[in-house]
């Protein structure tokens, strides 16, 4: 307990997300607003799902343990579905926002692309989800106590921190994947996101058998991260993509992160060399257009 556990768990859970925030989001006011709005949407989805759960619990017998557990599982599944529904709503809102931004800018370019918004929205969802899962635990970790004194797992704080970190990353990747699917009308991507989310939440039902929840989640994160990473072009995006993206040109010279290309290492393309991985033509061929 005490400070060591507190700081350790805080940095495990929020360290990567904080660095993502500091290096890619904090410098741009528009991204900060999108982040907070994403957090807000996640919060609203949580509110509605806990309302449903609350009603179900109040309508049932509080002494029946199995029923309560069943209701909780139902609550979790319903919450996951609602979160994805709100992600879709947020996508719709951001589409409209992009049109507004384009109309209001002088050079007809939106200052931010839908891919960047997808990333920031994912981080927003992830941060809020992680914060709600972890903050009360961290506050308790500061105080006196012994973990697992009544026979529960002694790794509670640590595994919670790791689970939170993996969920934040997953939300980020799901955000990108989801928006990409919505943009290009690839419904299988959207379905994949929903199913993955259900799977990860479902795997936590194995807790405290942590090998059943943490290991699959990390594997899933590695897989999704690698796939999403392959799809994020290092070259300027937007103006050279498929027809649906053509509507929203982004200022040339900006990579995905808004940095000029060459400022960061572009992600490895399937060909395995960076030269072919950059440049607009490579983007087109990689996306199959």
């Amino acid at each position, binding site marked *: 307990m005490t400070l060591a556990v507190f700081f350790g768990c805080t940095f495990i859970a929020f360290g990567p997300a904080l660095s993502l925030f500091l290096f890619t989001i904090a410098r741009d006011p528009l991204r900060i607003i999108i982040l907070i709005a994403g957090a807000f949407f996640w919060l609203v989805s949580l*509110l509605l799902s*806990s309302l449903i759960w609350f009603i179900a619990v109040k309508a049932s017998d509080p002494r029946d343990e199995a029923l309560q557990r069943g209701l909780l599982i139902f609550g979790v599944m319903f919450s*996951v579905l609602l979160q994805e529904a709100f992600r879709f709503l947020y996508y719709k809102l951001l589409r409209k926002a992009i049109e507004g931004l384009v109309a209001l800018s002088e050079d007809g370019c939106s200052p931010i692309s839908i891919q960047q918004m997808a990333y920031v929205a994912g981080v927003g969802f992830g941060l*809020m989800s992680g914060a709600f899962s972890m903050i*009360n635990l961290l*506050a308790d970790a500061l105080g006196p106590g012994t973990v697992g004194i009544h026979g529960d797992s002694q790794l509670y704080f640590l595994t919670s921190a790791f689970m939170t970190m993996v969920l934040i990353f997953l939300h980020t990747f799901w955000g990108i994947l989801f928006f990409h699917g919505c943009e290009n009308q690839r419904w299988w991507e959207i379905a994949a996101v929903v199913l993955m989310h259900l799977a990860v939440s479902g795997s936590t039902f194995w807790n405290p058998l942590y090998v059943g929840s943490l290991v699959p989640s990390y594997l899933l994160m590695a897989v999704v991260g690698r796939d999403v990473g392959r799809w994020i072009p290092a070259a300027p995006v937007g103006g050279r993509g498929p027809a649906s993206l053509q509507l929203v040109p982004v200022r040339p010279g900006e990579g995905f992160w808004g940095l000029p290309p060459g400022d960061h290492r572009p992600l490895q393309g399937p060909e395995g060399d960076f030269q072919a991985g950059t440049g607009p033509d490579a983007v087109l061929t990689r996306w199959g257009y």
Partner: protein
Amino acid sequence: MSEESEESVPLLPLQQESMASALFNTDQNDNSERRRHDNSERRRNDNPGSETNGQPQNNIQQVVEDEEEDEELTLKYGAKHVIMLFVPVTLCMVVVVATIKSVSFYTRKDGQLIYTPFTEETETIGQRALNSILNAAIMISVIIVMTILLVVLYKYRCYKVIHGWLIISSLLLLFFFSFIYLGEVFKTYNVAMDYITVALMIWNFGVVGMICIHWKGPLRLQQAYLIMISALMALVFIKYLPEWTAWLILAVISVYDLVAVLCPKGPLRMLVETAQERNETLFPALIYSSTMVWLVNMAEEDPEAQRKASKNSTYDKQANQPQNGDAEPDDGGFSQEWQQQRDNRIGPIESTPESRAAVQALPSNSQTSEDPEERGVKLGLGDFIFYSVLVGKASATASGDWNTTLACFVAILIGLCLTLLLLAIFKKALPALPISITFGLVFYFATDNLVQPFMDQLAFHQFYI
């Protein structure tokens, strides 16, 4: 000493906060609106004696273009302004929540203010509800009365009275309340301190605060002081308002804010309109402004100064100089220190008629490095205070603790964002309280009663959603 003086918290700080909240909930719009005003005035004047940029401006077309550019520029700068307000609001809330969580003084019940005479320790719930409604009614009528008094004083140009009032309230906040705060912090951390050191610290803190707020000072220092006094005031409210009363007051004051700023006969609207007619800014001690670059004299002393020299100037926030009547050599507020500061910031620049004409001829959307500082946004201190009261009360009394606090925080920020968006669309003074407080209250009660049990169960079983 702290115990007996708390009971009778005098009228003055309450007046200050009522003025702040009631009035300036958003004057953000003064910037663009008045700039448009001045642009069109200048265009139509075409007066060679006036302080224009040395170019004849009698082009109606240019007025229209300017207005379109204004619209674009306003909305284009929208995100930056939102962040310029997010940061101080967040800081104020962080200070309040940190204090509430660590210093137990502010969550201990030590009596109530004289404005909320009815107690909430009653036997029945009905009685408690009734008492809290009465308390809220009394408090809101006190606020209404003082706002109307302020508007009347302003209308009849009793500036000295208003300034005296403001100075006394900021004196109280900066010296007395901060002394109590410091004492409680020392008690919490068990720090031994002698009176002499404390006297020195408080004296320095208070005097520098008075100078920064009412006169001139570095922008960041002034902003920091405004945040600190808002936090102190919010802490006083959190301590002395009983629970149900506090929530009711928050709800009622956001309704009042809506009415007072938007209704044609609302006191705040009349105040803003009178200030605009007279081409003055409102009281700088009660508004948080995100930028202060140019100092311009007030209307009565210098009618010429009304016409801004450059399209992108912001307002003065120092109302005192001309009010005092004794004019310094009229350098238009561009004193020596200001010149030096400007030279340090952006290099020595002297504006000649040719250079001004050249600047005028530039396309207006050229991004200069001064952009972030040129267009400021303003938020009344009362808004800071009530946002912090909401979040502070949430962290003090919620069973959900940090989840509830976080939810209220996000809700308030989103409300502020929406308010600024509406401001960019409607371009007139808007109340900043209603949307944020509504969201905040909804999220507080929903999170505390619905989400918290759910999250508790999830954490117990270590399920993740």
